């Protein structure tokens, strides 16, 4: 084949251009840390990258939801603990007041403490988390009980607030006032809360100095305490599930970010080696080109 000067030059330019293209690719990879910069570089990697990004973003959001749910339920759980404590004290006092040796003065003291416990109980029923009443079902903007212990709203056990903690996976995070303070029965606005009714009755009996009546209330107190325990164990079970979910999401997050990185991140060592290699080839082709292009017969004609 006859070779002309322009063929050599064109060939050299083409090859240099190819070299530069490859160098550009590796330089891009190193600068961005990504294997691809456009979907066409590798459509499969690109579409997988999109999917993984969504997955990772969702997992992060679910983690935040689980955190929120956990905070809400921790408040609930703490409040339930305090309610339990209050009820324990109520029971103690009720038992104590049944003692025949109590003087009216003693009974009045018990009544006073009982009064305070009632106020405390109403206060606990109106506990808020970040400005939201946690026992008010869907009406989180309204307190649950008035100062007498009557419901301020219609409340139903079905008013369950659900947080999404996974795709198609959600958890009920609230305890409704009706479940907790009304022995699991739906209530209408103005209706007296069952639990508070017990306390009111005890106080009324104490006021009347009727120890016998107070003693008769013990069954109702036990009943209410059992109800609180039932609710509390439900909350505990749900918190357990939250914790497991949190762990699983943490694992998922690590797995998916690892996958994402494997999918689209460049192997730095490999990219550097490739770049160095291309640099060498580029240098070699430059110097070879310089040799080939320069001399012609002109240089040797004197």
């Amino acid at each position, binding site marked *: 084949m006859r070779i002309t000067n322009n063929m050599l030059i064109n060939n050299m330019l083409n090859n240099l251009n190819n070299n530069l293209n490859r160098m550009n690719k590796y330089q891009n990879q190193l600068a961005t840390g990504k294997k691809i910069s456009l979907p066409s570089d590798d459509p499969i990697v690109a*579409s997988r990258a999109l999917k993984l990004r969504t997955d990772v973003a969702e997992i992060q959001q679910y983690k935040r939801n689980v955190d929120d749910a956990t905070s809400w339920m921790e408040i609930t759980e703490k409040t339930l603990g305090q309610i339990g404590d209050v009820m324990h004290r109520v029971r103690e006092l009720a038992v104590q007041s049944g003692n025949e040796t109590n003087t009216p003065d003693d009974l009045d003291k018990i009544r006073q403490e009982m009064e305070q416990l009632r106020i405390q109980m109403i206060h606990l029923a109106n506990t808020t988390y970040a400005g939201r009443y946690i026992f008010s079902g869907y009406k989180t903007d309204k307190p649950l009980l008035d100062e007498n212990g009557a419901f301020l709203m219609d409340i139903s056990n079905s*008013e369950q607030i659900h947080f999404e903690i996974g795709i198609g996976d959600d958890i009920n995070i609230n305890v409704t006032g009706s479940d907790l303070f009304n022995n699991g029965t739906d209530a209408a606005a103005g209706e007296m809360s069952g639990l508070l009714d017990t306390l009111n009755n005890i106080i009324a009996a104490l006021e009347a100095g009727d120890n016998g009546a107070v003693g008769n209330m013990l069954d109702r107190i036990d009943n209410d305490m059992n109800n609180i325990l039932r609710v509390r164990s439900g909350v505990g079970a749900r918190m357990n599930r939250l914790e497991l979910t949190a762990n699983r999401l943490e694992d998922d997050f690590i797995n998916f970010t690892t996958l994402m990185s494997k999918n689209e991140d460049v192997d730095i060592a490999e990219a550097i080696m490739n770049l160095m290699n291309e640099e060498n080839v580029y240098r070699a082709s430059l110097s070879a080109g310089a040799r080939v292009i320069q001399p012609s017969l002109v240089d040797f004609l004197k």
Partner: protein
Amino acid sequence: MSRSTFFGFDIATRGLYTAQRGLTNVNHNIDNINTPGYSRQKITQTASRPLLMADGTGMLGTGSDVTGVYRTRDLYLDAKYRSEAQYLGEWDIKDRLLEQMQVMYNEPSDSGFNAVLNGFYDTLQQLATDPSSLSVRAAVKEKAIMVAKYFNSVAAHFEYLQNDVNNIIYAKVQDINSLADQIAKLNKQIYNYEITGNTANDLRDQRDYLVDKLSRLINIQAYEVVSGKLPDGRDDVRFCVTISGKAIVDHTQVSYLTCVQREEKLNFEDINYLYDIKWADGNTLTIKSGELKGYLDIRDGNDELNGSPNFRGIPFYQRRMNEFVRVFAMTFNEGIIDIDGDGVLDNVNGHVDGYRLNSTGDETEPAGIRFFTMLDEYGNPMDSAAFAAGAGVDPTDPDYYERMYSQLTARTFSISKEILDDPSNNICTTDTPGQVGNIENLRSILSMRHNTYMFMEGGPEDYIKTIISTMGVDAQQAKTHLDNQVIMTNQIDMRRQSVSGVSIDEEMANLVRYQHAYNAAAKMIQTYSEILDILVNGLGL
């Protein structure tokens, strides 16, 4: 036997002429070494007509003559180059434009569609955990605006690109006409020169170069046709260039192409008044390849819909994005979605079925607020009622929703006026009035994100993923085609260069050769001069 005293001078002079002609040719070749399209020229040199000696001693040589100058060119390679260059042009354009289109989607990245949609759903999730928070509600509005703006911006960029491509098509048609004009002019010159029996080498080179250029722009065939005999018996050869069988250049005649603005859009998604390319004489033009075909496919390609080119170009992606915002908005607003994948649309709770944050327990009708509507002709978001009125039929009409949402395009996609004005109240999370902590309506909306029957391709992310990977695959394919064409045309061009290119070494060798020939011929003259000197001056009486 006697002959002319000065006959030797005649022969030597012819030698000088021949050598000079050779040197001139070397000079011409070297000068044009970098002229595009130039093919090296060669002189043909023969021994001049000898004298027949009457005494039977044979023929007497009379020196040399240059009988012609020819260009070294392989016409087969030219035809081959042109048939490949048209595909080079086509894929070059497609490769370049598809790359631009990919950049518009800005994926995969941390600021593309995925990031925008994830951001929107993240704030919705936050709203689900804290539905009464005004700051989260404001954030939902902002993120929703980002989603809408993303589509507006991508659609706008596609429109700009379509407009740009349309202008380029106009310019390319002018290029083609101008090239045809120049070729016709050269035809005339070449014909005039060659009628005397010469070969118009340099003009032919120029013509071939122009035809090469033309072959990148559009599918052409170029050939010489014999149209009779000249008076001297040679063939009367004329040069023609045809596009899909119809001559654009017929010897000195040019048929121009022209751009006509469309009265009716080819694709619904097109911008107005795109150009159709026709023959100026009104005939329809079939464009099979070349840069023009690349531009047309990108501009009009809608996957063969409504007779558009069988290519996924700008209208295709506009259509896909329109389809996305329509289905997405309809699902989000109305809750109309094929929830169980049985092929029949179901109606679950959507945003219209929710109640405002400040709703009171005695309300009986949902707020009926559509979260997403569209921009009106002044660029302001429509409210739900105005958007619904755009359907033009009663809500009882079976096509009510389809008609309502078919007004929507990616370019005009927007959040509704209600959401824009008062996100605090008008984002409807509850399905029962007066319950601020109730998120059942929002949950119904959120659950659709993972409904794989929302689109044929799956959920919203799957749909966009499909669009982007389709484009990625197309762009990759264009790149592969382009790479192949580059290699093919380069290889053919190499072979052409091998035949036609000027080699400095060769020319230098010829230079030396002709220089020596010239020196030798000059030496002959000197020798004859010395002989005559002896004859005239030395043999003196």
